[in-house]
């Protein structure tokens, strides 16, 4: 299968290049985001009837993990409102750059933190408190507000979208999984970039800003760190940047050998399994432990959570890839082969999310009519009864996702193993075993 250049279509090209459609979406998203913060802080404390819980953890999450990430990669990042106020302050403008003098401090992000470890940590922080976060409106409101203010603060001190690139907990896994998506932004012709002076795609020009994601578009080979903000399409003087449709998981054919990304894969895989057991399983003690933050039980839960992710799962994986030779070669092989866990993790999250989304989607329509729990009935749907949806397709859907993910990860392991000159069989067996475990937890 070949790539299809979507930006060849003049309508698509204009829509992406023009700032107005993007701004319209931005305004809607930002207003919705701020409303969610307020709803969480002043609305009803009952999660299922509060806009912040229903629209963040059910509606937005469903769209993110079932549609945006698998099909559009970092598509959510393209419309996310979190960086916007900070970026507008940073630029001193909302639409076009009036001048190129940098506002505020504009510092370079520290070298030692130029990786996704901070994102791994921020995701884990949310994950350990997830039972409280997912069910308590004011906590969700506070977390959303904290992310917004963190982004504004970072934009004032550092250059570009530092929050998005190095801190955002969601961006960490969206970036990792975007490698599997059938959408990409790439340059058309390398020679054009080689001859280009000034590189306005990275440094900015009168047409737009330099890449807010601190990526050199001319060197983009993977989706991981491109946030699809379209700034480079506006600045490139040679129209050398395109958005393409492509086969799934094209980026995984060129596995990165980074440990931070490898551990992100374990974090996502492990947390999907733990959530499936704790949240969707019948074991009350686990739920109590996960919810009662601060108790001994919760500390034990947190310790188990972290050891599963950082010790248990990686250790078994290490056994699958080691040839008991020098540590550097081993680390490279470990990181390269962990690429196989990327499609598997994505499908684990799809399968897990399908369950609670289908069970609770009926809250969405009700919440639209009464977002704050004040007794409104804006669209007449406030009294719709809770009713799980499509329960008959849930188990088949989860099976499809998990078995499909297994095949996908097996193929990815095969290709990555070729790079790492080792047999993919142990890794494939590893994937098989965790898939069986996830099937048992979910079905």
């Amino acid at each position, binding site marked *: 299968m070949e790539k299809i250049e979507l930006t060849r279509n003049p309508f698509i090209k204009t829509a992406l290049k023009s700032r107005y459609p993007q701004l319209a979406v931005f305004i809607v998203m930002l207003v919705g985001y701020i409303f969610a913060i307020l709803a969480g802080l002043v609305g009803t404390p*009952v*999660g*299922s*009837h509060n806009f912040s819980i229903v629209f963040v953890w059910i509606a937005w999450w469903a769209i993110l993990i079932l549609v945006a990430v698998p099909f559009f990669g970092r598509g959510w990042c393209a419309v996310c409102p979190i960086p916007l106020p900070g970026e507008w302050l940073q630029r001193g403008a909302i639409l076009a750059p009036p001048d190129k003098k940098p506002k505020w401090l504009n510092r370079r992000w520290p070298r030692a933190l130029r990786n996704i470890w901070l994102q791994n940590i921020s995701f884990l922080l949310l994950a350990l408190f997830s*039972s*409280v976060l997912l*069910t*308590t409106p004011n906590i969700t409101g506070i977390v959303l507000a904290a992310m917004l203010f963190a982004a504004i603060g970072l934009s004032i001190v550092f250059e570009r979208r530092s929050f998005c690139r190095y801190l955002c907990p969601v961006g960490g896994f969206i970036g990792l999984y975007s490698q599997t998506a059938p959408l990409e932004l790439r340059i058309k012709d390398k020679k054009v970039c080689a001859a280009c002076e000034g590189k306005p795609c990275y440094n900015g020009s009168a047409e737009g800003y330099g890449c807010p994601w601190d990526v050199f578009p001319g060197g983009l080979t993977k989706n991981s760190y491109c946030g699809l903000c379209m700034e480079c399409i506006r600045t490139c003087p040679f129209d050398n940047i395109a958005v393409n449709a492509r086969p799934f998981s094209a980026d995984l054919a060129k596995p990165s050998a980074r440990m931070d990304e490898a551990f992100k894969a374990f974090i996502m895989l492990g947390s999907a399994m733990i959530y499936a057991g*704790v*949240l*969707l*399983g*019948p*074991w*009350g*003690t686990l*739920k*109590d432990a996960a*919810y009662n933050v601060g108790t001994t039980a919760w500390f034990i839960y947190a310790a188990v959570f972290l050891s599963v992710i950082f010790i248990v799962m990686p250790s078994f994986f290490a056994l699958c890839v080691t040839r008991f030779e020098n540590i550097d070669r081993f680390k490279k092989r470990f990181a390269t082969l962990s690429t196989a866990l990327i499609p598997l993790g994505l499908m684990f999250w799809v399968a897990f999310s399908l369950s*609670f989304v289908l*069970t*609770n989607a009926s809250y969405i329509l009700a919440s639209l009519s009464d977002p704050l729990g004040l007794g409104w009935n804006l669209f007449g749907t406030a009294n719709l009864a*809770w009713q*799980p949806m499509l*329960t*008959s397709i849930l*188990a*088949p859907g*989860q*099976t499809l996702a*998990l*078995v499909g993910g*297994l*095949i996908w990860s*097996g*193929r990815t392991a*095969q290709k990555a193993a*070729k790079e790492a000159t080792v047999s*993919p*069989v142990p890794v*494939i*067996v590893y994937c*098989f075993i965790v*898939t*069986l475990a996830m*099937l*048992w937890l979910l*079905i």
Partner: protein
Amino acid sequence: MRSYLLLLLFAMAGLVVAFAPLPVLVIAPQERTFRIDARQFAYSPSELAVNPGDHITIQLVSTDVVHGLYIDGYDVSAEADPGQTATLTFTADKQGSFRFRCNVTCGAMHPFMIGKLTVGTNDWLLRSAGLAVIAILGVFILVKRN
């Protein structure tokens, strides 16, 4: 063997595993009664196992606040105030594993107040495990070929 023939073979094996009727062990249906205590946020017992065709009675006893019990797939439910046992009766005519959950908002972790009812064998889990095995065999064969 040619690639597409192999693919066809695997696809057929997959369809068989997914859809072929499994042998059903016919056990005479019984009357079964279970007492389930409900608290924030768990059922006790939280896992039930019955045979297909059994006539089930669940006595739901709430021990702190008002709870409900709704069974996925069967779409039946009951609601119990603390102290007033509620009774839910139905015939377990669908085989497989079904989660039951609380359908009366009972606090923060209400959406995760879940138990499991298994009627007969969890067919679908066996089938998906089988499909996973076929998938893995397929991947291994591909690995060998390359």
